[in-house]
């Protein structure tokens, strides 16, 4: 077993939150059976929607491609069980991609027949990185930590930069969520194997597997596997349990003490971060040829009878999952996809589990915090902000709609972690206000861009008209000049030609 190391950078602020994870980590991962129906959104990733390649009525097999990647930025979608395509229509989804989104609905036949797997591919270490990257692209793999950035594109972007470190993110800092924790406990081998594949794809030699201190079992498992694998390129790191140290940029800062530049990516400071789930998915695809068609999700909260972690097929609806795990309790008043701090509340449990869904949280209504009071500038928000913003000042400028000041004070750097909301004694919904303000700034920027384009078009048109006028003038001047220099002889010639013409006409 390899003991974790602790040498870390510093992260400002953050909060220690009540974890509420023990209810769901007590049991092993439960496999959700094949549901009657699967609902697969064609957009489960950042980027262009996938393009359906199956028709209504068509029968599909488990693992079959049903929507292919369209455009340079995106990911394909695979059928997560066998059955018949019954509809391709808008369906309620978790709000990240709008309220309703086009989905492929499969009526499952319950046989769960798998498409024929490709022949055994050569050992991945024999493959050139480019081939490996192209292969990863076809697996439908996206970042499973929540950002759902297509993994292949993330790796390709990283290949264009100088990358030093691969960071495998096992820091699951939001309360209630424990899917990565149980995954690390049960599938440490696959996670480490995935990390090795990713290192080969990136052609780098340093990898940190980072886990929070409140997950001793996961640390132990990973340590044992690392001891057995004896791959000295990989180091296990333990970080303190402080929310939001699992955020990508925060983790980079914590592990390497490098700050990801504003508006930049971890690759700008030589780091690539991948979630433990993503690493396992890469292993499943590259080694076992199983595309991303299922994931581990935490089903928890006082609104479900039996909190646990489940492995569910992508496309299984929340209603089906909750039924399979034992149903709701009478305290079920709010349905949240994701965690308490950054999750999205959804209005219907018809939404399907997608690649991004790390948690289905059903809780009772929180007691009303009371009315929103004026900001008293106590500065608690600033003391917990992991990006070291001054939320109290930003709030002021957001109220005044002062775009320049909001930019100056780093509104776009806000990661919307929600820490400031929690400590605000005046109960101001700061995170929500900042989200709105960001939207307005984006709108303004769009408007400005449109105005600039319109002005450019107008100027281009004026320029063109002027140029044409100038050309005409030049031509006229040329004719005059010709006439003048050619002298009387030419004029006589022209007159003669004219006369000739009129005679011909007669």
């Amino acid at each position, binding site marked *: 077993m390899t003991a974790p190391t602790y040498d870390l950078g510093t992260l*400002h602020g953050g909060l220690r*939150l009540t974890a509420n994870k023990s209810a769901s980590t007590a049991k092993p991962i439960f496999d959700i059976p094949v549901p009657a129906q699967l609902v697969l959104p064609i957009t489960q990733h950042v980027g262009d929607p996938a393009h359906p390649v199956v028709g209504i009525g068509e029968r599909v097999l488990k693992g079959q491609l049903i929507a292919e990647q369209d455009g340079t930025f995106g990911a394909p979608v695979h059928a997560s069980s066998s059955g018949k395509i019954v509809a391709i229509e808008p369906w309620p989804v978790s709000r990240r991609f709008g309220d309703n989104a086009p989905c492929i609905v499969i009526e499952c036949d319950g046989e769960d027949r798998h498409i024929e797997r490709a022949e055994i591919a050569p050992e991945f270490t024999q493959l050139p990185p480019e081939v490996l990257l192209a292969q990863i692209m076809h697996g439908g793999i996206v970042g499973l930590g929540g950002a759902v950035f297509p993994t292949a594109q993330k790796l390709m972007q990283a290949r264009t930069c100088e990358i030093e470190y691969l960071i495998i993110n096992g820091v699951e800092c939001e309360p209630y969520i424990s899917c990565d924790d149980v995954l690390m406990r049960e599938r440490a081998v696959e996670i480490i194997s995935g990390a090795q594949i990713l290192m080969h794809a990136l052609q780098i030699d340093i990898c940190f597997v980072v886990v929070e201190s409140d997950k001793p079992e996961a640390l132990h498992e990973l340590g044992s596997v690392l001891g057995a694998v004896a791959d000295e390129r990989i180091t296990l790191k333990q970080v303190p349990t402080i929310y939001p140290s699992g955020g990508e940029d925060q983790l980079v800062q914590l592990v390497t003490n490098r*700050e*990801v*530049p*504003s*508006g*930049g990516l971890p690759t700008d400071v030589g780091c690539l971060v991948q979630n433990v789930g993503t690493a396992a998915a890469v292993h499943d695809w590259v080694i076992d040829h199983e595309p991303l068609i299922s994931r581990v999700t935490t089903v928890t909260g006082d609104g479900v009878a039996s909190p646990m972690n489940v492995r569910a097929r992508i496309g299984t609806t929340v*209603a089906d999952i909750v039924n399979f795990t034992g149903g*709701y309790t009478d305290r*079920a*008043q*709010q*349905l*949240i996809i994701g965690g*308490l*701090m*950054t*999750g*999205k*509340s*959804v*209005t*219907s*449990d018809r939404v399907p589990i997608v690649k991004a869904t790390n948690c289905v*949280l059903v*809780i009772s209504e*929180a007691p009303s*915090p*009371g*009315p929103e*009071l*004026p900001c*008293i*500038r*106590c*500065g608690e928000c*600033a*003391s917990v902000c992991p*990006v*070291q*913003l*001054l939320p*109290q*000042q930003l709030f002021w400028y957001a109220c005044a709609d002062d775009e320049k000041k909001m*930019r*100056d*004070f*780093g509104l776009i750097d806000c990661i*919307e972690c*929600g820490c400031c*909301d*929690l*400590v*605000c*004694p*005046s*109960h101001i*919904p700061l*995170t929500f206000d900042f989200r709105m303000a960001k939207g307005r700034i984006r709108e303004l920027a769009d408007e400005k861009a449109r105005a600039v384009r319109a002005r450019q078009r107008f100027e281009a048109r004026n320029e063109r008209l002027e140029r044409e006028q100038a050309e005409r003038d030049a031509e006229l001047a040329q004719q005059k000049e010709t006439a003048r220099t050619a002298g009387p002889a030419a004029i006589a010639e022209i007159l003669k030609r004219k006369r000739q013409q009129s005679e011909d006409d007669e």
Partner: protein
Amino acid sequence: MEFPRREAPFLGPRANVASMMLQVLAALVPAAMAHVWFFGPGFVFNLLVAAVFAAAGETLMLGLRSRKPGTGLSDYSALVTAALLAFALPSLTPWWVTATGALFAVVVAKHLYGGLGFNIFNPAMAGYVLILVAFPVHLNLWVAPRMGDLDYQALTILQTMQFTLTGSLPDAISFDAVSRATPLDIMKSGLNNAKTVTEIRAIPIMGDIGGRGWEWIGNFLAAGGLWLLVKKIIRWQIPVGVGLGLLVPTTIMYMIEPGSSASPGFHLFAGATILCAFFIATDPVSAATSPRGRMVYGLGIGFLIFCIRRWGSYADGVAFAVLLMNMAVPVIDYLTRPHIVGHDDHGDKNG
């Protein structure tokens, strides 16, 4: 199943303004009891008058500004203002003086600037300065502290109440018999009359460090302030800033001219220094807001207290120092913005 829509985060807030204000009030209780012990029951009357008029002013202004009075009063900020004002006033103060200060603090300094969260000036200090300008004579003399070994004439509750209500003492008692100049006044006038610090300090009312009674109230205020620090109601930058801003120059002067400069300890415990460091300057609304900014703000107040005490015509300078630094807050906040993670601070000024 259908569910309502909410916005993240889904965790309720951990703190609220009312409980913060209540904890500030609680932290003042030991010092208030010491105040009553040393300077008699007048403090209680001052507090009552200030609280009633501050609450009345708050209710009136919230009504005029079409806000629900309930929400404003329930945050207890008016009570904190009243308590700080009561601490700043001599225990023998006629009710109309206290009432004027309390009303000015709440109505003008707080609500005319937009109410809680928008006031530029610390309301209690604005109220105090109004009294200082309008009724200077009432701030000059404090009732003599309980002296133990020395003879002094203590006032009964009824006698104190009579003074509070009418502004005069029973005929048998002369004001001079029960009142004394404050240690800061004694120090100032003593130095002006070319006495040495050692001579001045020999007067019994000067106590061990900062004046009989005052030093003990200071201890209790400091204890309350430390408790607020532990509870994270206030942060360390402002108290430390005020302390350093005052102690550094006074120490230097004390080392250069010990004969004509009061000791740093005297400056710390005499007057309202400790009250200011933990309770007045730490009012978040009128203070600077970034950590470095708060340090600068505290240092500024401490240094101004030193300047006013040494070269000004007032014996104590806390109220003016706080109000002057209140004015500097916007520029302090602008110049002391913390480094935002991921920003290049050199090329960032016009961001």
